[in-house]
């Protein structure tokens, strides 16, 4: 039915099948829509956030998907700036994933703040000392850049491409993509950093506070590194998942392997620095506050196991797997490593947000626990639904994977 819209020379499922496929994601969106309505209409009392857990599930989700979406800018950087040609085969997918992650995060933030209608005060009454202002500026600008990066791909839809004006516009845009890739890299670099900085600057919360370089706490750099180490892995996971679902090979192995290799090295560097940072924290920030490392892990479910998991199981292990060429060429190990790596970054963000807030700072204050409400899950799940929906729609109607035709010659 929608065949005129499909890219040329590739096979797509029937419209009905596609519609069925979208149903669960639409359901998630509906759940999210209801949740968003309730939160905007009645206020944030619909959540289980509190004055203790001022940041909660949504911020964890935001930070996690922004970190995972880092594959977009970093792949763009490698493709257009460094000139790694083989990555042209994944760059479209990376851009779409990035777009989904960033726009999803922005949407969630819009609900997360108490006065969404006044959200623009961040720009109007900006406080230059606030890391969150830096984050907001960079994310907003970068989302626009992602949009621009996304446009040429949209214009390459079979029907839109036929319009001469649009074709020329899309093509010219594509030609100067390096400029946007550079802009995107710059912006992303700073907001990933300032997201880390957000927590490192909390000098009155010894669990999160970090020393640093000039105005940037170490978490600033660690967040950048961890994001660019995990982002490519997430891109790999997404393409692998698409390949699995479409039962097609979409991206040549060399592109995947290159991403995996780069990820491996970045992850390794990150881990060295993360361990150094942790030691610096244990012997610097913590005793200065009159505390011992173990003091943070006495109450609630949060124990030393968090540190072990974050650094060893979700850090060192995937780094080793990805560093060994033989291992990363093995489909199963590659996916395992990517999963571990991505889990690691989510855990890292979780620790910096939830554990930081859960651990009482005043000696006589007590430990609080938090469980999200269905409304909170609804919003978070809607982002997942939105991601699947946008990605599969893009895949269906746009030439996302340039090599798809070559890798899957028509058999009919």
């Amino acid at each position, binding site marked *: 039915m929608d065949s005129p819209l499909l890219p040329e020379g590739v096979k797509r499922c029937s419209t009905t099948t596609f519609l069925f496929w979208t149903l669960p994601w639409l359901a998630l969106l509906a759940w999210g829509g209801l949740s968003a309505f309730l939160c905007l209409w009645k206020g944030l009392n619909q959540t289980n956030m509190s004055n203790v857990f001022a940041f909660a599930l949504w911020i964890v989700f935001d930070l996690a998907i922004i970190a995972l979406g880092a594959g977009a800018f970093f792949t763009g950087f490698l493709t257009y700036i460094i000139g790694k040609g083989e990555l042209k085969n994944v760059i479209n997918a990376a851009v779409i994933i990035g777009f989904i992650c960033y726009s999803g995060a922005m949407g969630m933030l819009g609900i997360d703040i108490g*006065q969404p*209608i*006044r959200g*623009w*005060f961040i720009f109007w009454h900006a406080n230059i000392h606030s890391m969150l202002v830096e984050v907001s500026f960079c994310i907003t600008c970068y989302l626009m850049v992602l949009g621009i990066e996304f446009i040429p791909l949209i214009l390459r839809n079979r029907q839109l491409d036929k319009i001469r004006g649009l074709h020329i516009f899309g093509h010219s845009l594509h030609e100067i993509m390096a400029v946007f890739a550079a802009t995107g890299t710059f912006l992303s670099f700073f907001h990933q950093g300032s997201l880390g900085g957000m927590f490192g600057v909390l000098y009155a919360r010894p669990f999160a506070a970090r020393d640093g370089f000039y105005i940037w706490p170490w978490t600033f750099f660690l967040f950048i590194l961890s994001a660019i180490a995990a982002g490519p892995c997430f891109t790999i996971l997404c393409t692998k998942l698409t390949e699995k679902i479409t039962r097609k090979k979409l991206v040549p192995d060399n592109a995947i392997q290159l991403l995996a290799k780069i990820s491996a090295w970045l992850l390794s560097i990150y881990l060295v620095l993360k361990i150094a940072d942790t030691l610096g924290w244990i012997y610097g920030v913590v005793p200065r506050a009159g505390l011992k490392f173990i003091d943070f892990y006495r109450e609630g479910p949060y124990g030393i196991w968090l540190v072990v998991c974050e650094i060893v199981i979700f850090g060192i292990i995937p780094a080793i797997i990805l560093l060994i060429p033989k291992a990363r060429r093995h489909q199963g190990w590659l996916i395992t490593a990517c999963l571990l790596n991505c889990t690691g970054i989510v855990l890292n963000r979780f620790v910096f947000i939830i554990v930081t807030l859960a651990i009482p700072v005043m000696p006589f204050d007590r430990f609080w626990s938090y469980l999200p409400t269905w409304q909170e899950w609804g919003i978070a799940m809607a982002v997942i639904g939105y991601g699947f929906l946008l990605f599969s729609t893009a895949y269906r109607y746009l030439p996302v994977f340039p090599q798809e035709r070559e890798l899957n010659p028509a058999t009919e």
Partner: protein
Amino acid sequence: MEINRRHFIALLVGGAAGINATPLPWKFTDDIAIWTQNWPWVPVPPTGEFSHVKSVCTLCPGGCGIEVRKVDDRAVKIEGRTDYPVNPGGICPLGMGGLQLLYNESIRFTGPMKRVGPRGSGKFIAITWDEAINTIADRISDLRKQERPEALAAIDGNPTMGTMASMIERLLRAVGSPNYERIPSAEDTYRMTNLVMQGTEGPMAYDLENADYILSFGSGLLEGWGAPGRVINAWGLWQEHTAKRKARVVQIESRASNTASKADQWLAPKPGTEAALALGLAHVIIKEHLHNADFVDAYSFGFNNWASPDGKNHMGYKTMVLNSYSPDQVAEITGLQPKDIVALARDFAGAKAPVATCGKGKGYLNGSLYEFMAVQGLNALVGNINMPGGVLVCDPPPLSPLPEIQKDTIAREGLKKSRLDHAGTRRYPFSKSLIGDFAKTIIKSPKSPVNTLLVFSANPDFTLPDGGAFREALKKVPFIVSFSPYQDETSYMADLILPDHTYLEKMDDVVWPTGLQYPLYGISKPVVKPVYATRNSGDVIMQLAKRIGGSVGSSFPWKKYDDVLKERAKGLFDTQAGLVHYDGSVPAWKRLRDRGSVTPDYKNFDDMWKKIKAGGFWYLPVHAYKNWDRLFKTPTGKFEFFSTRIELAFDDYALLKNMGIAEKGDAACMPHFEPALSGADRSAYPLLMLPYEMINLASGWTPPPPFLNKTIFDNQLRKNESFAEINPKTASKYGLKEGDRVTIKSPQGTVRVCVNLFEGAMPGIVYLPLGFGHTAYDEFSRGKGVNPNDIIHMGKDPLSGHPVWWNTPVQLIKV
């Protein structure tokens, strides 16, 4: 031109782009942001002219000075006064939240009402004042026609010495009913203590500020005892780091209350054994000759063994104490260490100005008479009766008596009938009113002997520690009239509501705030115009009396209640003393300490009355100390360790058993210790439940202002469940953890609460806070927590007949 899809899209895109080129989106963005800053559903308090009105808080008998900030006609904030003698600037949390009582329509009656739903449902419809007053007047007239005026009864929670109380009692006497019941409080026990040991009628007056050693037998000095604004200020003075001699506070209590925790020393005897401890201290003091021999030898009676004129030998206090209350014996009774008892006795007797106080918790509930006597005995032993920093013996407030009550034959006959509670009879010779027995009589009678019950400033349904007995009695009374301004539990049981003004809307007097060591007369005056169609109950009583007519009407010769206040206040002028201005730099306690004299700062009565109405008070900060030779009005003219009044009250020792006294000999006339008998099978109820009071939880008649909820910790109330404080050791015996739900069962009933493990709770005792568990009022307090009064197994205090509420046997059942 043909319009096709392409044109349409172009129009849309172009239009969108065009709008963005105009200022419209920017303007809109700005406008909706401004809208969020002015949401119509967020109230904007109207501004106006600011003014301040000075008055006196009457939410508790403490009577602190308050200054209310107003904006036009609205009261917006209550603050403490610095130009009032009782409280130098501070007030208690309850008083601070008073405006939420004035302005909360859902807990107030907006005018006279009659009940339409079943009792307790809180369904009323508005009627006119005429109809309301006529209804009661007709009922009372009917009772008088039937020659049973005694079937009218009143329950009064107004302060004893205030004019309102005298008006209510006056109404009953004029009608011809002896059944004027009061809400029992520690004041009753103080009065009896003073009467039997000193023969005096004045209030118990502790000179706390000038004391240097405060031995408190369970007095909740920080829980709202006495006049909280004054007592807590005294506490601040005791803690002054710069003070030359820091006062020492010792708290005797079984639980680590705020007072116990903040005190310099905390001793925890088993609850109900405080009298034994006091006598144990007396033992050490006497044995070590630490007592004040000047006082004891010359101005006390019954210290040594003595012989009566008939030649009979009697045991003296000294012998009794030395024989029966050695540190070891007392340690056995109280569970304390003998060495602690000895040390405490030495400290107390060694202090320059020691004072021992009694009256548990806030003093809203009665105490045990023998225990109070034992504590007062300590003050006497160290000779600190009527001495600076001790217990002052004061005359009753110098108010003019009201004219004789007119009584017709019906009234005279009615007053001859015995009281339903037997107070003042040979059984309870010193009690004036026993509401527990009043309820019991109603419950036991096949038909309620009370036909019409008037309730003033009281919520006995909720506040009486009687296991719900009073509620049962209320159910049997055919007609109940409530004068409460608030929709409390008792008014929910009423058939007719004649709402009084709240304390911020009416003129009333505050006579001698509880525990104050000098006479003070305060006037609380209308801070705002009455918010609703309510009437001052004092005026309503007069209107009612006039409507009944005859001698009843002529017993109330005044036009309005304010005239009565003025008439009584004449007595103040007659003293030719006292002050109506207060200088904060010379607090009353300093004036007392420095023994200065005062020259009245008013010219004539009218000038005085004008100044009292403006400033709100008259006070007399002078005291004639010592005066031991003329002080005591006992039959012997001395301070009586052996109370001859008690001895005179029964000619036959066999009567003792009737009075609930276990002691059989001379000791019955002296302070002594008797274990409270619950009569319950302790094997089925192995633990004890003790209610406790908190200053930030209204446990009396006054409804709790919602602000108080902010100060309640979430291990005291969570959602709608209140908590019992239990020692971790006791809890572990029952396998209970923090937050577990548990049923507390007493012979009287059960309540369900959560467990709060508290190291400061005595093992074996379950502590429940008083003030939760309202079934009336609004969503701020209704249905929150449980009321321990519901399961209290009320015993009877020997001699006074008042309830013993500190001895409820319970068991715990994990839910």
